[in-house]
C-alpha cells in the first residue's frame, strides 16, 4: 500500500539531510539562548551539546528500526507489527503528534510576523498567505519537499554571518567560568533543548525514500550535527553579546540580536531577516503538515493524501478566523510539543526497537 510511490519519490542523501535539518531549525532556535540561560546561565551551550548527542542516539535507533524493513514508512511498520486496529491507532497518534507540531509552528510563525512585521494584518490573512505555498508543496511527495529543504538551506547560508555581527560589541568574559555551578544544572537544562532538536523523528517517514540507504546513519548524524552547530553558534553569540543576567529578559533573544544592526539607510533590519527566515520556518512547518496528512490518509486507506490535505488546510484557515492564539497559548502549544516530542522522538523508538527484537526472537530470529 505504498501510496506516494517510492520510485518516483526517491530522495538523495543530501535532500534527506537537509530535510531533517530544516525540520529541526525552526522556532526553537529563536528562543533557545534564553531558554537554556534560565536553567544553567552561560553554560547552556554545553546542555545543547548533550541534547545533540541524545538526539543522535535516538536518530540512530530510528534508522536501525527502519533498516529492518527498508520499504516501509512508520505507518506501514506499525500495521505490520501491531495488527490492523492497534497499528492504526498508533499511526493516528503519530499523525496527531505531527499535526500538533505543525500547528505550533504555523501559529507561532503567524504570531512572530504579527509582532515584528505586520501588526495590523489579521491572522487569517497571514494564514491564507502561508497556506497557499504550504499546500502547493505538501501536495507533492517527499521528493519535492526534499528539494525544497535543500534549496532553502543554501538560500539561508548568509544568515549566520549576520547573526555574528553583534559579536564585535560582546564580551567573551561572559562565558567564564565554564561550568559555574557544577554539572547538575547543565544536565537539568538538557530538557529545554529537546524541543529544538525535534525533527529527526521524521526519519520514520523519510527512510524508505532515501536512495543511498547505506548512508542513512551517517546522514542523520550529519543532520543532527548541523543543527547542533547552528544552535550552539546562536547561543554563544547571544551569551557573548548579552550578559547572562540580561538574556533572559528577552522572549526571542535571537531576533533582538538583529535589532542592533542598523544601516544609515535602513533601521529595523530584523524585519528583512524575519521575512527571509519565514523560508526556514516553512521547512519546519510543511514537513510536519505533510507527515500528519500522509499518516491520516494512510489510516483512512486513501490512495492519495491530497484530499486529506485539502481538509487540513481548510481547517487551519477556518480555525484562524475563529481563534487568535495569545502568546500564553503558544507557549502551551510549545510545551505540549516538547512533552509529546520526548515520547515520540526518544521513548517511542527505544520501546519499538525492544518490541521488535522481542517479536523477532519469539519468531525464531526471522524478521516478520
Amino acid at each position, binding site marked *: 500500500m505504498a501510496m506516494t510511490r517510492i520510485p518516483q519519490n526517491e530522495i538523495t542523501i543530501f535532500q534527506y539531510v537537509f530535510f531533517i535539518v530544516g525540520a529541526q531549525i525552526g522556532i526553537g532556535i529563536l528562543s533557545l539562548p534564553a531558554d537554556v540561560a534560565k536553567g544553567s546561565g552561560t553554560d547552556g551551550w554545553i546542555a545543547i551539546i548533550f541534547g545533540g548527542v541524545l538526539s543522535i542516539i535516538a536518530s540512530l535507533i530510528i534508522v536501525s528500526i527502519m533498516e529492518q524493513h527498508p520499504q516501509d514508512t512508520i505507518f506501514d511498520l506499525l500495521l505490520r507489527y501491531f495488527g490492523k486496529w492497534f497499528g492504526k491507532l498508533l499511526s493516528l497518534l503519530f499523525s496527531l503528534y505531527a499535526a500538533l507540531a505543525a500547528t505550533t509552528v504555523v501559529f507561532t510563525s503567524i504570531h512572530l510576523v504579527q509582532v515584528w512585521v505586520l501588526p495590523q494584518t489579521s491572522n487569517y490573512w497571514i494564514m491564507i498567505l502561508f497556506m497557499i505555498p504550504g499546500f502547493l508543496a505538501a501536495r507533492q511527495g517527499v521528493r519535492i519537499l526534499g528539494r525544497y529543504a535543500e534549496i532553502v538551506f543554501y538560500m539561508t547560508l548568509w544568515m549566520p554571518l549576520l547573526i555574528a555581527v553583534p559579536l564585535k560589541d560582546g564580551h567573551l*568574559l561572559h562565558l567564564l567560568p565554564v561550568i559555574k555551578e557544577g554539572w547538575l544544572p547543565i544536565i537539568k537544562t538538557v530538557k529545554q533543548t529537546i524541543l529544538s532538536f525535534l525533527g529527526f523523528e521524521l526519519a520514520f517517514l523519510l527512510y524508505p525514500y532515501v536512495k543511498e540507504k547505506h548512508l542513512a546513519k551517517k546522514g542523520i548524524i550529519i543532520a543532527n550535527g548541523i543543527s547542533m552547530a547552528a544552535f550552539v553558534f546562536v547561543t554563544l553569540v547571544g551569551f557573548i553579546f548579552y550578559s547572562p543576567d540580561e538574556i533572559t529578559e528577552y522572549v526571542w533573544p535571537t531576533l533582538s540580536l538583529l535589532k542592533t544592526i542598523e544601516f544609515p539607510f535602513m533601521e529595523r533590519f530584523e524585519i528583512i531577516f524575519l521575512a527571509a527566515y519565514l523560508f526556514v520556518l516553512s521547512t519546519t512547518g510543511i514537513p510536519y503538515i505533510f507527515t500528519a496528512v500522509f499518516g491520516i490518509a494512510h489510516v483512512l486507506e486513501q490512495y492519495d493524501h491530497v484530499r486529506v490535505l485539502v481538509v487540513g488546510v481548510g481547517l487551519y484557515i477556518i480555525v484562524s478566523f475563529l481563534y487568535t492564539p495569545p502568546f500564553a497559548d503558544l507557549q502551551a502549544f510549545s510545551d505540549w510539543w516538547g512533552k509529546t516530542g520526548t515520547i515520540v522522538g526518544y521513548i517511542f523508538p527505544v520501546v519499538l526497537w525492544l518490541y521488535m527484537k522481542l517479536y523477532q526472537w519469539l519468531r525464531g530470529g526471522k524478521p516478520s
Partner: protein
Amino acid sequence: MKAAALLLCVALFLSGCGMNTKLDSLTMTLTLGLDTDGGKLLSYSSSPVFNKDAKEHTEVIEVNASSLREGRYKIDLFASGRAVGGKIQNVVIGKALAKKKEIPSLLDVLYRDPKNSTTALLIVYDGPVKELMESKQKDKPRLAVAIKDLIMTTAVDKQTVKTNLLDFHRTLFDKGCTPFASEMTRKNGKMMANGTALFDNKGKYVTSLSPKETPFLQLLRKEIKPAIPFTLRTAALTGKKENISVSIEHGKVRYETRYRNGRFQFHVQIDAGVIITEKIADIDISKKQKKLEKMIAHEIKTKTTALVKTFQHHHVDPVGFGLYARAYEYDHWKKVENDWGKAFAAADVSVSVKAKVISYGVIH
C-alpha cells in the same frame, strides 16, 4: 485558469495598499525629551514638518503625562499628523528627572514595542529639557540631526560616550557593571557635549564625569580605537607651566582579579602606545623620551586611579570590573552579585601603566 490564478496573486498583493501611510501625514518623533517639573512628568516630542506652507520645519510638542506611552496619546492630540515613535534618534532625559526617578521604568515602552528603534541615543541633559527642545540654532541642521551628530563625533574623540537604548539596557541588566550615558548641556546659547552621566544598578543618575575624565573611562573599557587624546602639564619636566598633547593610538589593558582577605583585588595593567600631537613645552623629546614616557604613564595612572576612586565612592562600576570578578572569582562573586556596587567600593584596585612614545609627528 492560469490568468485567473495570476489575477488572484496580484489581488493578494494589493491587500497591502489598504493600510498605507503617507510620510507627510505622520508626526515622526525624532527627538524625545523627558523632564520633570515639580512632580509632573513632562514629555517633549520634536518632529519634522513636511509642508511647504509651514514656517517652521520642526514641530515641538510638550505634554505632561504619567508615562511615555500615555504621553504619546496626548502628543497625538496636538500633532497635525499621526504620532509615531519608530524613527526616534535621541532620547533626552533631564538631569533633574534622572536624579529623581529610575529611568528604565520610563523607557519600558521603547524596549517592549518592537516597532520602536532601540538604536536611539540616550542623553542626559543638564538643564531644563524644554530649552533644548525649543532651541533654534541657525547654524545647525534639524535638532535631532544636530544632537546626534554632536554626540557621535564627540564620542569618536572620546570626550563623551555613545550609548544607545540597547547599550543602556545591556549595562543595566548586567550585574557586573552599571550603565552610563552621554551628557549634554547648553553654554552661551549653544548646545555642547558635556562628558558622561553615570547611573547606579537601578538606573538612577548618580554622578557625572567631565569631558576630561571621560577618555580615561574609555581607556579602562578598552575602547581605544581610533585614539584617545589628552593634554598633560609638563611642569615637572621643565619647571614652567606648559603642556604637551598626546594621543593613545593603541594599547593593551589587562585585568588581574583576585580575592584576598574578604575583598576583591583588581590589578589593571595598561600598556599604551602614544604619539605626540602637540608640543608647547620646550623639551627635546628625543633626549628626554624615557622621562617623558614616565610622565605620560604617571598621568594616565593618576587619572585612572582617581576615576576608579570616584566610581567606588559612588558605588558604581561603569568599567565592568564585575565581569572580571564573575569570570575569575565566581564563588565569591555569587555572594555579592546583587549588590556589586558595594562590594566594588570595598575592593582594592591598583593601576600600573607603561607608556611608549611611538611617534613625534613630522617635525622635531
